[in-house]
């Protein structure tokens, strides 16, 4: 990899960035921690049989989610993958509704019909997560074309992984996005592995951003676990899109959580894999910066962590109490009225 | 009491118009029988009775009924009987009793015992034919299939859909069915004919004895009675050949009577010929022959025969070899009663004689059975005068 996430213990906080105030910095930390706490509850709930099917935690990639989404207006649109709980939560979807959806309950945001991989809340701009790798990318392109066509000034973020970047639809979508200069920012989470296959064995070149450059698209590669770097790169892309300058590609290098999904086997050495992502964990890394810049102390951040974890515990408990959908509900919503 | 309600036949349906009742108020109906036609915004649809019962119509023809509205009510039939035993006029008869002259018995099964369902005897029939047979009360075992591979198809059930209930569709359809049956019988049945000139003294005497009564007893009636009794002695010739080659023998004799009509020969069935009095036979024979000639004979009257009598004695016919009517296994052909010069104990005499030919499906029985039937018939003809009740 040309850029790699910097390990936490080697990270040296740079100077405090000027164009961002304390509240925003804390908000970034807070959002990352909310996602972490939620996903930890999810993993635990799954291990207790409360979440059917499978689920794909984005633990370790919170920097990308929080950094990217911090650049958006409320009416901007987001498309994400099945590893997109972070995007959904940060965009403003009710966490209880989300957790209930993962648990297949009637009060879930999709009435229990979608589960972990099919989340949607268009009222806050979270159009959809998707279970088909790269399946959502052309749709995101179409949504951006729609914003352009309707002249709303909205911008679309489309999150996907390195696996998706090998699918044909990915290339088709990029070609059309650049051809028509749609207001779209492609955000590629390159975590170095697609289920079991490392990118060294699946990609002709190590940087996925090269592909975007092949279409003449402006592209950036950042350390995905540096939340501020992600934020800056995506902000550039959002500004370009908003100014009708067309799409941008931001490749965020990161390291995947220990397994592909809560359901998957871990591979040969789970402990080694756990150490891998923890070594570059974006949350303690950012904590280091916050402390260095005197935005907050460790004790304050510990207290904040505890508060957030308590919140998410309550969310999970409330979701657990939610009712299951009635059996007849399987016949509903096949067609729209 | 079971209500028949209008089902939701399509998502958009809200109501339907009762277009035509296929049975009358008070009729007994069987489960699965089509009893009413309703018209929705898309199509006309037949609705079937959900259970056996006596029909009490609630929604008249022309009425508009909402989905789940009541069309009719079905009252349970009298205990111990089934709809199959009930007569057309709604009178329920216990299956084991023989019909009396006053009633019009319409059992669906010809004397093979109550409880045998039409169509369960190994006949190959299309689902539509089975349904029609059920609705018409026709026994499939009595039919010859004219469809591919001998399959019984809808047109083989006389009284098939286009016909109004209770009447033949038209002599053309009937004729067509008869021709098909004759053709199939001729093609498929290996015949053996056993003929003999029988002593007819008793027959002539009996005829003279009954001529005085007003009952209008004819030679044919006497032949029916005698033949029915004779068949009781040779049961292998009184039954129907199944598709697997076995013969389903019948306890009762239901004699098909070949009747010449303007549209061609018909063979209405005189049921339980062996249990009836001569007077009853005459009355029933008259009814059937008249109905056949007028073209009003019911589908039920045409089915269920176990053997056929064809009498051409009104013409100067001595002997003829008829075509057995499948799936029956025998047909008895009689010519005229004629005075013959005979040799008796070395002396010449003049006696009434009757040529009788027994045509047999050789797959089901041998010529020897024909010989025995002729012997039995000759005996019965001789005892006719004493046999009148």
């Amino acid at each position, binding site marked *: 990899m040309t850029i790699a996430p910097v390990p936490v213990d080697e990270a040296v906080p740079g100077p405090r960035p000027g164009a961002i105030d304390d509240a925003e910095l804390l908000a970034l930390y807070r959002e990352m921690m909310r996602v972490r706490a939620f996903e930890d509850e999810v993993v635990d709930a799954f291990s207790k049989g409360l979440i059917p099917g499978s689920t794909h935690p984005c633990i370790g990639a919170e920097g990308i989610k929080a950094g990217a989404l911090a650049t958006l207006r409320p009416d901007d649109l987001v498309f994400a993958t099945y590893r997109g709980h972070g995007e959904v939560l940060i965009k403003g979807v009710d966490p209880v509704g989300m957790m209930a959806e993962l648990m297949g309950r009637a009060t879930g945001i999709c009435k229990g019909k979608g589960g972990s991989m*099919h989340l949607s809340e268009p009222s806050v701009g979270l159009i959809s997560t998707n279970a088909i790798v790269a399946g959502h990318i052309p749709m995101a392109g179409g949504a951006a074309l729609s914003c352009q066509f309707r002249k709303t000034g909205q911008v679309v973020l489309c999150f996907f992984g390195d696996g998706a970047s090998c699918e044909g639809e990915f290339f088709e979508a990029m070609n*059309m996005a650049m051809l028509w200069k749609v207001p779209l920012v492609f955000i590629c989470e390159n975590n170095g592995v697609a289920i079991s296959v490392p990118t060294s064995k699946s990609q002709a070149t190590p940087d996925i951003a090269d592909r975007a450059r092949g279409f003449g698209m402006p592209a950036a590669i950042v350390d995905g676990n540096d939340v501020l770097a992600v934020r800056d790169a995506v902000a550039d892309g959002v500004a370009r899109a908003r100014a009708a300058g067309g799409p941008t590609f931001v490749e965020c290098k990161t390291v995947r959580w220990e397994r592909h999904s809560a359901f998957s086997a871990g591979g040969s050495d789970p402990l080694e894999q756990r150490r891998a992502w923890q070594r570059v964990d974006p949350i303690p890394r950012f904590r280091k910066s916050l402390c260095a810049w005197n935005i907050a102390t460790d004790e304050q951040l510990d207290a904040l962590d505890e508060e957030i974890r308590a919140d998410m515990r309550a969310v999970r408990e409330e979701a657990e109490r939610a009712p299951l959908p009635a059996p007849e509900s399987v016949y509903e919503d096949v067609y*729209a009225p | 009491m079971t209500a028949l309600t209008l089902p939701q036949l399509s998502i958009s349906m809200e109501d339907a118009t009762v277009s035509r009742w296929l049975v009358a108020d008070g009729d007994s109906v069987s489960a699965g029988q089509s009893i009413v036609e309703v018209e929705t915004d898309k199509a006309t649809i037949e609705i079937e009775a959900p259970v056996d019962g006596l029909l009490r119509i609630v929604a008249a023809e022309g009425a508009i009924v909402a989905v789940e509205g009541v069309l009719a009510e079905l009252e349970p039939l009298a205990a111990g009987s089934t709809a199959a035993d009930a007569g057309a006029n709604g009178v329920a008869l216990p299956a084991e009793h023989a019909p009396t002259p006053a009633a019009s018995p319409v059992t669906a099964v010809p004397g093979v015992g109550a409880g045998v369902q039409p169509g369960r005897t190994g006949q190959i029939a299309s689902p*539509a034919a089975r*349904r029609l047979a059920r609705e018409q009360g026709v026994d499939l075992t009595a039919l010859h299939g004219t469809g591919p591979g001998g399959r019984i198809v809808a047109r083989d059930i006389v009284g098939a859909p286009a016909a109004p209930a209770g009447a033949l569709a038209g002599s053309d359809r009937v004729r067509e069915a008869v021709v098909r049956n004759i053709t199939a019988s001729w093609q498929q049945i290996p015949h053996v004919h056993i003929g003999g000139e029988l002593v007819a003294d008793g027959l002539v005497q009996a005829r003279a004895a009954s001529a005085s009564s007003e009952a209008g007893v004819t030679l044919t009636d006497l032949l029916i009675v005698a033949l029915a009794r004779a068949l009781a002695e040779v049961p292998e010739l009184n039954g129907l050949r199944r598709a697997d080659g076995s013969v389903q023998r019948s306890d009762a004799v239901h004699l098909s009577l070949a009747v010449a009509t303007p549209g061609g020969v018909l063979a209405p069935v005189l049921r339980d010929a062996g249990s009836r009095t001569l007077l009853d036979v005459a009355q029933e024979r008259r009814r059937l022959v008249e109905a056949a000639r007028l073209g009003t004979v019911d589908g039920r009257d045409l089915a269920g025969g176990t053997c056929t009598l064809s009498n051409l004695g009104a013409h100067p016919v001595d002997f003829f070899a008829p075509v057995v009517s499948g799936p029956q296994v025998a047909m008895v052909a009689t010519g005229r009663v004629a005075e013959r010069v005979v040799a008796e104990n070395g002396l010449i005499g003049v006696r009434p004689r009757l040529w009788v030919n027994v045509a047999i499906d050789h797959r089901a029985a041998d010529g020897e059975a024909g010989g025995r039937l002729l012997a039995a018939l000759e005996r019965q003809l001789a005892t006719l005068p004493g046999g009148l009740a």
Partner: protein
Amino acid sequence: MSEAINQALREALDRPEPMMLIGQDIGPYGGAFGVTRGLAETYGEEKVRAAPLCESGTVGYAIGLAITGVRAVCEIEFFDFVGVAMDQIFNQAAKLHYFTGGKLTVPLVIRTPIVAKMGMGPQHSQSLESWFMHVPGIKIAVPSNAADAYGLLRTALLDNNPVLFIENVRLYGRRADVDTAGETIPFGRARIAREGTDATVVALSGMVDEALTAADRLAERGISVEVIDPRTLAPLDMETILASLRKTMRLAVAHDAHRTLGFGAEIAARCMEEAFDYLDAPVERVACKDVPIPCTPSGIEAVYPSADDVVAAVERLVA
């Protein structure tokens, strides 16, 4: 028929609500078969947008438009090319409304023609509608004439669901009277193209005319055939078909698709399930042989069904 389709598209494009047409060659060129002729001139190339050659991406973009407030009509040039876009159609468009619990709606029409009997060979000749009958969540319309094309497309352009609108290149040029002020044709309403009493033929798309020709020939021999055109396969008007079966007791299905698991297989199963007691003969299927479709005219003749095959099927039904 192509003019009728063009007209229906114009009427929808005239509406104030945002709408876009997208597909290969549909812009100034007017579409591979000329169906969108003149639309780009009238409405502009942004609204009648020629897309690059990427069916999957194009359908995906069309879905993206539809779920964010822009009604979309996507053209797939030949029905055979639908394979490239399958995931977007059956996994995405068909299911988005369902798995989001109703949060997203997909007002999308995918138009595509059957190019049967044109000699274009195995990859440019197929009728694949039964693949989509198998997927819950997608509606399917198959007009066989100009009037139905107009009425059904108008309905599709008002529907908030994904609709696969299957046209037929051999029928594009067929003329018929079209009442442009008339009613839209609702989905799920079959058309009885010809009444009859002895047998029912359910025919689709190009086979409707063949069935009517066959019915004429059979009428000369005293066999009265009822021809039903289902017009939409999802929702499917089984009621009209079953009512006809109950009347005639004999049914054949005729379609250009391959025999195995074609539309006829579903009809046969449903007739058996829902009207078993009315079958006087097994359901006949008149269909394309189960081989890849050849280019050569003699091969096409051998492989595709025709009026002769419908006649033979009805003869078997009434035997």
